[in-house]
């Protein structure tokens, strides 16, 4: 196998993988954080929504990708289906940590904020979200790292990414190919973990 060709392929699949993860996490954030906030206001919905997110996490990833293929609009072969599956996985940690982070704001702090005449929006933006930021970011970190791993399976349904190497390597019993997929994926996970962890620590200045 010629080396420059492999390197170019690694770079291409890594960036494909990265974009796949980025889009999935962005969508999971856009759904998970508002949904988490909503759940702090609507205790009745908590069991149901958290239950759904929990069940999604327990479905084996390969099976979930398989289940989604026959579903119209979101299913089929390709990136779209992969993203839907990855969003479903990333949702729980983000949703749960948003909920827990806001609920663990000291009751006395919340009561003071209300008693001083903050509106609901001011309470959320100036008190609840800043105080919950660390916990929410911890959830985002967990979601990102697991998504980087799970995204390797996207290749099984034509989603591309570093999984291409891994599946090809398994099929052809070629360790180099498997490593060409696994090593960049692991590096990507480590870098994201460290990066988000660093941001998280900056919020510890309470």
């Amino acid at each position, binding site marked *: 196998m010629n080396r420059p060709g492999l390197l170019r392929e690694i770079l291409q699949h890594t960036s494909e993988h990265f974009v796949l993860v980025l889009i999935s996490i962005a969508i999971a954030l856009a759904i998970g954080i508002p949904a988490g906030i909503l759940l702090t206001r609507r205790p009745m919905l908590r069991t149901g929504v958290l239950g759904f997110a929990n069940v999604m996490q327990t479905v084996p990833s390969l099976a979930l990708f398989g289940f989604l293929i026959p579903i119209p609009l979101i299913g089929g072969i390709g990136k779209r289906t992969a993203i839907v599956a990855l969003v479903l996985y990333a949702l729980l940690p983000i949703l749960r940590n948003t909920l827990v982070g806001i609920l663990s704001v000291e009751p006395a702090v919340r009561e003071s904020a209300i*008693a001083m005449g903050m509106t609901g929006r001011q309470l959320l933006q100036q008190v609840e979200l800043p105080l919950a930021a660390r916990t929410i970011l911890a959830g985002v970190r967990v979601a990102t790292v697991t998504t980087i791993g799970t995204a390797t399976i996207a290749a099984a349904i034509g989603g591309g990414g570093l999984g291409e190497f891994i599946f090809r390597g398994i099929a052809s019993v070629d360790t180099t190919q498997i490593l060409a997929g696994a090593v960049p994926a692991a590096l990507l996970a480590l870098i994201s973990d460290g990066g988000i962890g660093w941001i998280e620590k900056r919020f510890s200045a309470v």
Partner: protein
Amino acid sequence: MAASSTATVEFRSVSFRIGRNLILDDLSFIIEPGETLVLLGRSGSGKTTALKMVNGLVLPSSGEVLVDGRATAAWDLIQLRRGIGYVIQEVGLFPHFTIGANVGLVPKLLEWPPERIAARTTELLEQVGLDPGQFLNRKPRELSGGQRQRVGVARALAADPRLLLFDEPFGALDPVTRLELQDQFLALRKSLHKTSIFVTHDVREALRLGTRIALLDRGKLEILATPEEFLKSRTPQTRAFLDVLKMDVLKMDVLDR
């Protein structure tokens, strides 16, 4: 809002129940401008609930609470609350804000210009005995319990509210610090003349700070009296509270006053 404005509060047959539990039972009284009414009672007497009715944190099940002649149910609660200072035992300072930002919060909500907020914050810290240069940029966790409660009082006074509510503000402090803060409360009252409602279970604190004392027992108003009348009254409940004073030298103080 005029600098010396102060409020009248009236309870009109106020009851509050949670399910079948009657927390407050037909309370009626008027708090005159400038007076300090102490709501005294044991745990579970409903005194904190009564206090929270004044700034609309709790609304009555029946009857009404009037602030400046208007029922809390008819007030825009956000506006009502911005005109009422609120101090609680746990202080409830915002841990992510500096002391300065904590004190200046209500003025900021009221959209005062920044220079005016800064000037007011400095003035208030001095007023409650904290050096602004030293404390302005610190975070609440760097302060002692007593210092935090002083900040809590400064925060409540920030936008020159017409009414002040205190919910056992000094309950968690050591006795010496508590005495200091009580003295400061009396000094502030002398200079500000604001209507205040003060919740406590400590009869000594009630006698020391109140212009009148309302004793609550299981949601009912047992007696509403000046400290002097309170000391002379002989209902079973007042006796129970006054027994606390029997061995107390402070009793002499109050009788002398």
